[in-house]
Structure formats: structure tokens, C-alpha cells
């Protein structure tokens, strides 16, 4: 589903990713682990199409299509979803309005008809329940005054509503206590599907106790320096990044 080859990405002229290779098939969950500054967030932004993240070399194929040629909103309509590390606040726009606008924008781009307000409400309510997202939260302005846990739950709720083909979770565990983490992880696990690929980006092994990946890749200094099964996370936790990164260097 996702085929990244020799990807080089620069931000403000400074190269952050330096020849990254990654391949994820449908139904697979991959984790990217790495120390701060290794390029984890850069990878997530470049996949989502954020302006200012320039691909200087290499390619990203998504279902055989050149992802870089698509605008961010086109990627979303085609099933790419990024759960952000720092979800932004949009004052005055209720969460419900935002969800409805986003959902219908994606549908329109795919040539599907709009879902009316009642239909969206039904859909959102059904999915919100399992993620413990309250009616009250849906009425509040998007992410304004939300706790860290509420923000992350809302990100996963969006993932559940949009039903993406490729979901990228950028440090979804950051800022969460253990109960919140479990709730979010359950939400993610419920969305595991043979037709869906997931890329879980995290600094800590802890999240991977709950979302167990098929493959783990260790990112350091813009490159994948180690790969393995789920047991690699435990090794990292025990020995630290220095050990593995040092070996690779």
C-alpha cells in the first residue's frame, strides 16, 4: 500500500530525512521508533503533505500513485489520515461542525453525495460512544480547552469516522496517562482491518504494549537503522536508543 524509496526531505533547506525506505502492506501495523530529532514527525508531515517539507530525492508510492503529486486534502479524500501529535484549536468552530465539514469534503472529492446533519450526527454518536467522547465535547469548539486525553481521543474518533486506508499516528501516546492510553489504544485496535495499513510513530515502547505492531523500524538521523518484530521494542526499552543507533553507525 505504501512504498517509500530512498526518501530525502528538507525543511528550510536542512535535510532531515536522508534516504528512508519503508514498505507497508494492507492489513499491517508498522511502528516507527526513534529518539527525539530523528525525523519521526517530519515523516508524518511529509506523508500528509504539509507545506514546507520538501522532497529533494526519492519517492512515495501510495497504492501505486505518486503521493507527492497530491494536495493534502486530496490525500485525505483518498484515505490518508494523520492523527497529529499536537491537534490544533479552532476557536468558534464546534467539533461537530468540523467533523461534518471534513467528512463531506472528503466525500465530495470522491464524487459521493453529502451526508446531512442528522446523518452525520448519528454516525458520530455511534462511534463517539466507544471512545468515551461526550456529547458535550462535540458541542465545544474544536480542541479548545480540551485536555491532552480528550484531544487524542478526538483524533482517533476522526480516524473511526473517516475510515482511512492508511492511518499514521504521530506520538498518539504523548501526554496521556495510562488509562487514557489504554482507551486510545483500544480505539485504534478496533480499527485494525485487513484492508487498512497503520503506521504508529512513537518514542516509547509503552504504546506498543497495547497496539502490537507487525514490524518495528528504528529511525535515527533520518534513516531506518534497525528493523525487526515486536520484540525489538523490548530490546530498545532495555538497552536504549544509543545502543542500537551506535551499532548501526
Amino acid at each position: 500500500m505504501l512504498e517509500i524509496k530512498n526518501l530525502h526531505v528538507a525543511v528550510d533547506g536542512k535535510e532531515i530525512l536522508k534516504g528512508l525506505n519503508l514498505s507497508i502492506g494492507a492489513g499491517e501495523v508498522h511502528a516507527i521508533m526513534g529518539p527525539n530529532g530523528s525525523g519521526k514527525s517530519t515523516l508524518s508531515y511529509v506523508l500528509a503533505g504539509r507545506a514546507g517539507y520538501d522532497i529533494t530525492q526519492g519517492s512515495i508510492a501510495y497504492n501505486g500513485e505518486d503521493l507527492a503529486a497530491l494536495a493534502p486534502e486530496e490525500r485525505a479524500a483518498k484515505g490518508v489520515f494523520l492523527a497529529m501529535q499536537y491537534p490544533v484549536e479552532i476557536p468558534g468552530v464546534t467539533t461537530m461542525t468540523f467533523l461534518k465539514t471534513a467528512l463531506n469534503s472528503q466525500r465530495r472529492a470522491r464524487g459521493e453525495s453529502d451526508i446531512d446533519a442528522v446523518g452525520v450526527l448519528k454516525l458520530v454518536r455511534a462511534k463517539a460512544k466507544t471512545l468515551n467522547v461526550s456529547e458535550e465535547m462535540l458541542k465545544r469548539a474544536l480542541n479548545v480547552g480540551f485536555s491532552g486525553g480528550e484531544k487524542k481521543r478526538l483524533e482517533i474518533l476522526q480516524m473511526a469516522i473517516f475510515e482511512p486506508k492508511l492511518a499514521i499516528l504521530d506520538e498518539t501516546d504523548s501526554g496521556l496517562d495510562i488509562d487514557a492510553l489504554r482507551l486510545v489504544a483500544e480505539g485504534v485496535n478496533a480499527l485494525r482491518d485487513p484492508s487498512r495499513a497503520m503506521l504508529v510513530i512513537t518514542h516509547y515502547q509503552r504504546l506498543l504494549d497495547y497496539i502490537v505492531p507487525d514490524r518495528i523500524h528504528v529511525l535515527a538521523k533520518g534513516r531506518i537503522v534497525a528493523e525487526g518484530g515486536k520484540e525489538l521494542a523490548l530490546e530498545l526499552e532495555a538497552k536504549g536508543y544509543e545502543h542500537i543507533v551506535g551499532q548501526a553507525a
Partner: protein
Amino acid sequence: MSIAAETKSQVAELGEKYKYGFVTDIEMERAPKGLSEDTVRYISAKKGEPDWMLEWRLGAFKRWQAMTEPKWARVHYPKIDYQNAYYYAAPKNTPKKQSLDEVDPKLLETYKKLGIPLHEQMALAGVAVDAVFDSVSVATTFKEKLNEAGVIFCPISEAIRDYPDLVKKYLGTVVPVTDNYFATLNSAVFSDGTFVYVPKGVRCPMELSTYFRINASETGQFERTLIIADEDSYVSYLEGCTAPKRDENQLHAAVVELIALDNAEIKYSTVQNWYPGDENGLGGIFNFVTKRGDCRGKKSKISWTQVETGSAITWKYPSCILRGDESVGEFYSIAIANHYQQADTGTKMIHLGANTRSRIISKGISAGKAQNTYRGLVSVYGKAKNARNYTQCDSLLIGGDCGAHTVPYIESRNKTARIEHEATTSKIAEDQLFYCLARGIPQDEAVSLIVNGFCREVLQQLPMEFAVEAQKLVGISLEGSVG
């Protein structure tokens, strides 16, 4: 169906009745070009006015000749040649209509293209619409229902003939003939407008609404509106303005006077999207408007809500004179300036009575190369003990070439007054835009969403059935503002 296709099919249905092309073909009857005592007499005669009205106009004209155009606003425009314009234009062959069916289908079509479906609006919202088309009212509806309640809602030209005592008693008592250059000009040459009188103890059974529309080229519009809410009454009025594209600059100098007696409330909402000029600053309406409400009675309330997205130049300060004790004045404003638009708008809250309260919420949005100024005055007089004001002015900038300016004047002559002023200036953040894009919302829609959120407090003040239209307008006026 697209609008064009819809228009075609409707034209086909109308068959023979539809003899003309689109709007511009309506035959116009005009006053001679230029402004003189003769012009004033011409207008008065065309309206079949009584002598006292003509005298009033002539007095204003004399006064105007001795006045000079104000220059203090932060707006720049070429000198207006008052002698090179028409001061009266009316579509020919438009006797009074009893129902919408009698109205020239072309007019209805125009409204439809502007997204103002009269039929639908009336059916859905129970709105009485007094449609003003280039100065002359062509359709007045729901008259009977209002008659039953005793509410007078008619063109002001009609009120001058039919209710001279009311007009004489109140006209010019809030905005005096000598008030300012543009108001005085309006007093001399006003063509038509709306008159509303809500009698004692009556809650007006429906939202009242007038759509103004400039159609004739090079014709200034001088609307005059007078609304009186007698004791213990309530009325909500919506004025919407739309104008088709023109290359010449057109002058618009309206005057609106509101009078609220004891315990009365007037809610006045405006959606203004006159032609703003093109993206290079060519053309557009010059909008110099004087709007003022007088809370004359105890515990009276006047609330202004405005959504200003149009006009090349906006010069407008809907104000409240809080004369009655415990009276309340409110001003909720959204002013959007894009491309080369210049807006200088705000309000004046004049606290004269004791325990008077006022609230000002202003949201200014600037994009392109536009300049947007909030100019406001809160003045508390000596006798206005315990007066309270809260002012919040928020500015939002889109792009790096526009400007936002806030000019609040505060005067207090009473120690017990409490005046609060808050102001913020922000930009649409890149991360907010990216968040929307990444969720599939295209750029223009994302800007519209974010700006609508920014304006929410004001949009909520609009009557429900117009809030949707206003939200769309906010988006349309900022299309392409983020490159």
C-alpha cells in the same frame, strides 16, 4: 440544476410574459444629471410629496452646500464629483403590486441569482419583504398580517403621504438634518426607504426585511429608513444589500433612524455585500452611511448587528444614544475587507441616562491589500451614573499585505462608570490551515470555516434564517485570499 440552467427553464416557463433580457434591460426613469435645487424639487415632485417635505429637503440642500466632506476616516478615494451623478432612478411601469406574482419576473430572477429566494424565504421563514429596487418599492408583502397587529411597514414615500404626523414627529430627530455631510445630502435627495411603526404593547409577529439593490449605472442610492418602536413593543428588522458588478464608483449615502420608547426593543441586522470592486481595486460602491438609534424611553434596548463584506469604501458607525434610564445598546459587527477594500467602521455608545449599559463586539477581518479600521466612541455623561460598557475588538489578518487598525475613544464624566476594553489581533495560523487540509477540507473552505469560527459571537446574533446566508457570504468574500 445550475443557476444558469434554472434561469433558462424558468424563462421558458414564463413564455411570452418574459419580454426582456436580464436585469439591465429594465427601462429606467432618471432625474437630470447633477445636483441642484431643481433636482431636489424633481425628486419631491416624482414622489408626490406634500409641501412640508419639500421644504425640509430644500433646507437640507441649502445646508449641504455650505458643508465640506469629512476627511478624518482612514479611507482614501478619488474626489467624488457630485454633479456627475444621477440622484434619482426608478424602473418605469412599476405601479404598486399587491402580490409577488405581479412583480417583474426579471427582478425575482435577480434576487434568485443573488441567493435570495423571496418565495422560499417568505414561505419558510414567514418574512415580510418590502423589496426596494433602485429606489422604488415594487413589492410589499404580508401587509395584511401586519395590519392586523397594527404594525405599519411601508415605503417611506408612502408613509410621508399616509402617516404625515408620525413622520413629522420623528423624522430627523435622531439624525438631524445638519448632522454630517452625507446625512445632510441624504436628507435633501433621499429617494425611498422603509418606514416601520410598531404600536404600544405589540410584538411584531414576524421578522421584517428589506433588500436594497443598486441596478442603474451611475446612480447614487439615498435610502432613508425610520423605525419607531412605541412603548412595550418589539421589532426585528433585517436589511440586506447586494449589487451587481459595475466599473464606475457608485455613491451610497443612507440614513437610518431608530427610536425606542419605554421598554421597547429594536433589533436591526444588516448584511451588506455591495459590489466591492474587482481584485485590482477598480470600481465598487462608496458606502457612507449614518445609522443611529435613540433609546428614548426607560429600559429600552437597541441592538445593531452588521455583517459588512462589500463596498470599496465603508464609512459607517451604527450608534446608540442611551437616553432613557436603564436603557441598553448593543453593537455586533463583522467587517471583512479583501483585495483593495477599505473599511472604517465602528459605533458610538452615548450614555446619557443612569444605569445604562452597552456592549460592543467587533470582528474585523483583513485580507489581500485591504485596510480595516475599527473606530468607536464610548461616552459617559455626567448624569449617567453606574453606566457600564464592555468592548471587545478582535482583528484577524490573512496574508502580510493588509492592515488592521483599532481606534477606540473613551470619555467618562462620571466616576461611577465602568468601562472595559479588550482588543486582540491574530493571524490565521499555518497549523490551523494544515489541520483542515489534512482532514480533507479544501483551502477556501478551510479559511471560511476558521473565519466563521472567529465571527461566531456576532453571527449568532443574526436571525436564524439569515445566519446561513451570512456564513456563506463570509466564505465567498474571502475566496482565494490565501495563496
